[in-house]
């Protein structure tokens, strides 16, 4: 596809379960970002990838959160032992290069609900 693809679009899980969220960036985009969007909170930076490495993981809220990127393409965000406060929309974005003024292209997000 031409845009950033995320799956699943919706995920309902029980507290304590693990979840995996997937992101397929635009082909050729070397930079990939994960943001979290909570109601009324704007977008919160989680992690940034340049290629397969993550120079900045500073936004990950706790050690229950991890992410990886393989082949310079697909990325997976994993949340272990989910808590209710993890409920949010998780947005993935990619850009051609990791430039400070580079345009971010966002996917439609994965809405996570933790019961």
């Amino acid at each position: 596809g031409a845009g950033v693809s995320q799956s699943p679009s919706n995920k309902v899980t029980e507290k304590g379960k693990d979840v995996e969220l997937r992101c397929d960036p635009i082909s050729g985009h070397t930079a990939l970002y994960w943001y979290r969007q909570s109601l009324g909170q704007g977008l919160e930076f989680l992690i940034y990838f340049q290629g397969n490495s993550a120079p900045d993981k500073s936004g990950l809220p706790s050690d229950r959160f991890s992410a990886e990127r393989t082949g310079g393409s697909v990325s997976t965000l994993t949340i272990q032992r989910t808590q209710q406060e993890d409920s949010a929309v998780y947005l993935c974005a990619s850009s051609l290069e990791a430039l400070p003024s580079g345009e971010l292209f966002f996917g439609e997000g994965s809405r996570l609900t933790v019961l």
Partner: protein
Amino acid sequence: QQQVKQSPQSLIVQKGGISIINCAYENTAFDYFPWYQQFPGKGPALLIAIRPDVSEKKEGRFTISFNKSAKQFSLHIMDSQPGDSATYFCAASRPNDYKLSFGAGTTVTVRA
């Protein structure tokens, strides 16, 4: 804490009116200020961006005004249309910093 404060949280404007959204920041190192537009169920998309060396940038009906001394910038939507109904986010980043600090968002509703 939020590095970019955005207001109002929501606004309603009549078709043809002007929508104004304001943002303020504290970090004087910020040098790039984009606005993103988000429709329900979609991801945000870049609308317009400005750097501090200019005080105003216009693209069609959308204008960013920038006041460096006040550390404020705003988005004006002229001749607002129902299709402009969306959530708008201001953001800022520092030189050589690839991550954006976003405001909390403003939901704009344009009534026909």
